């Protein structure tokens, strides 16, 4: 167990943790769906609206200067946090889904029907549906990296389907349904050898360990603020400059053009080309503050503590007879996806809620993984650095009661 990690002190940063559910203290094990928000991030939003709310980039007045500076500071924070080379390679979006759609739409005019794209069998719907839409308009073919029995990617099969025809490979860094960490370094290198670009969906990884995008040499990367202690409605897309230049924007509007007449429009430079309209200004600024917060604690410490939580939870939950964990592996973030024999995942979730325990149940927007395991859904308990070992004990006790009620 990790003694250097002062979880009680950290928990004081999160006002929601004093909430009672059904008269019991909230135990929040749905961190993979959305992270909770520390008070410094909430205050940052409040501060924005109370002190310098203004539209940005084109205002001549002080409020607009102040808001613009804060907004662009946030861009630099993202750049530094993920070790990105140029700040204009950071595009603010409304979230991972929006980011992926920018890329899939951008490629829909670049790819042809002779091209192929590769997706993993572990994807969130947000990293499947946009590419299906792209395929429809470009005619490119989709290949899927199959899963091995435990849910890990079958890398031999990946080597088989990867070819010079492959133009884009897209997969998540960590699977939201199972918590499996994919071997993205390997996948990026193998793909680049064939001349294919790689998009990594980091929605589930960025909160759990440090990521160095220059070192990874990945072509596109994206994450959502709301899973990183930040607010809803904001995320970012990293893309290599030369690729962003080649792609057409998903949306047109103010900010993203440099010249408009009715017959012709010239797009503005990066990053503005992809940031049409008034952005989520307060959200972007608060996202920057959230990254500061994570760095103040230290992602390495977070990673170690969460690994300890996961080990502990694994050892406890396995004591429950009939409980089956999906996607077991050494390379996992702190997520346990499970079922109990003969019981529907919904029933477990609904009753855990009565104990004040928030888990997610169902398909987790990843129907193909559920199909792989031949299940309708699972219970997913996702832990984070705001959780305690005691809470895992509480989950264990609650699960035993739930099981006896339902069988």
């Amino acid at each position, binding site marked *: 167990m990790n003694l250097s990690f002062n979880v009680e002190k950290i928990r004081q940063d999160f006002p929601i943790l004093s909430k009672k559910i059904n008269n019991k203290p909230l135990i929040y094990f749905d961190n993979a769906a959305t992270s909770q928000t520390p008070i410094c991030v909430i205050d940052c939003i409040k501060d924005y609206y109370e002190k310098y709310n203004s539209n940005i980039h084109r205002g001549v007045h002080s409020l607009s200067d102040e808001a613009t500076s804060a907004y662009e500071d946030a861009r630099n924070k993202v750049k530094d946090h993920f070790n990105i080379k140029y700040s204009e390679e950071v595009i603010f979006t409304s979230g991972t889904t929006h980011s992926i759609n920018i890329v899939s739409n951008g490629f829909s005019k670049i790819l042809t029907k002779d091209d192929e794209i590769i997706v993993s069998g572990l994807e969130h719907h947000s990293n499947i549906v946009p590419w299906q839409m792209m395929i429809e308009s470009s005619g490119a073919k989709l290949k899927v990296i199959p899963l091995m029995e435990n849910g890990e990617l079958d890398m031999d099969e990946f080597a088989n389907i990867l070819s010079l025809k492959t133009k884009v490979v897209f997969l998540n860094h960590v699977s939201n349904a199972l918590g499996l960490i994919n071997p993205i370094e390997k996948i990026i290198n193998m793909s680049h050898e064939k001349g294919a670009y790689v998009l990594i969906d980091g929605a589930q990884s960025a909160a759990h360990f440090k990521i160095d995008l220059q070192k990874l040499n990945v072509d596109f990367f994206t994450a959502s603020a709301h899973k990183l202690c930040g607010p809803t409605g904001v995320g970012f897309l990293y893309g290599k400059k030369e690729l962003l230049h080649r792609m057409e924007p998903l949306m047109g509007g103010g900010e993203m053009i440099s010249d408009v007449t009715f017959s012709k429009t010239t797009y503005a430079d990066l990053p503005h080309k992809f940031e049409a309209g008034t952005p989520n200004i307060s959200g972007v600024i608060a996202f920057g503050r959230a990254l500061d917060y994570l760095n103040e604690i230290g992602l390495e410490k977070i990673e170690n503590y969460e690994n300890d939580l996961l080990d502990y939870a694994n050892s406890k939950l396995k004591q429950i007879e009939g409980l089956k964990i999906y996607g077991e592996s050494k390379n996992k973030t702190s997520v346990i996806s499970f079922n109990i024999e003969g019981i*529907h995942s*919904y029933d477990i979730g609904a009753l855990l809620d009565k104990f004040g325990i928030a888990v997610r149940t169902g398909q987790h927007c990843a129907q193909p993984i559920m199909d792989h395991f031949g299940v309708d859904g699972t219970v997913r308990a996702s832990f984070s650095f705001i959780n305690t070992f005691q809470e895992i004990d509480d989950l264990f006790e609650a699960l035993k009661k739930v099981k006896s009620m339902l069988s």
Partner: protein
Amino acid sequence: MTIENAQKDIIDNFLFFDDWTQKYEYIIELSKDLEFMSDNLKSEDNLIKGCQSKVWLHAEMINGKINFLADSEAIITKGIISILLNVFNNRKPQEILDSDMGFIEKIGLKEHLSPNRANGLSSMYKQIKFYALAFSKS
């Protein structure tokens, strides 16, 4: 018995419980009362959208009243269906159309009415009303 009285009966039954455990144990009990629904009725057409566990609802008009058959994979959902059918089964379409769901709040199951798509109580009630409307026109 009118729909209103059936609802009152249910409210009275639930008043009896001191804590949520008893309440949910009762709901689980009720799930066992559901009339058997044969697999061939569990078709795509009878599937209700917007519930996390699969829920099937079948309706037939018999002597001017609607006969419902329903089932679900989840026990709690089944128990809640059972409550619903206690109220709405074998009713004339107009009775159903005139009804409301206030009693759900009174028995402390308000959370199941949320527009959250995980729990499908609103969807089930919508579908029941939909059938009532369809049969009232036929």
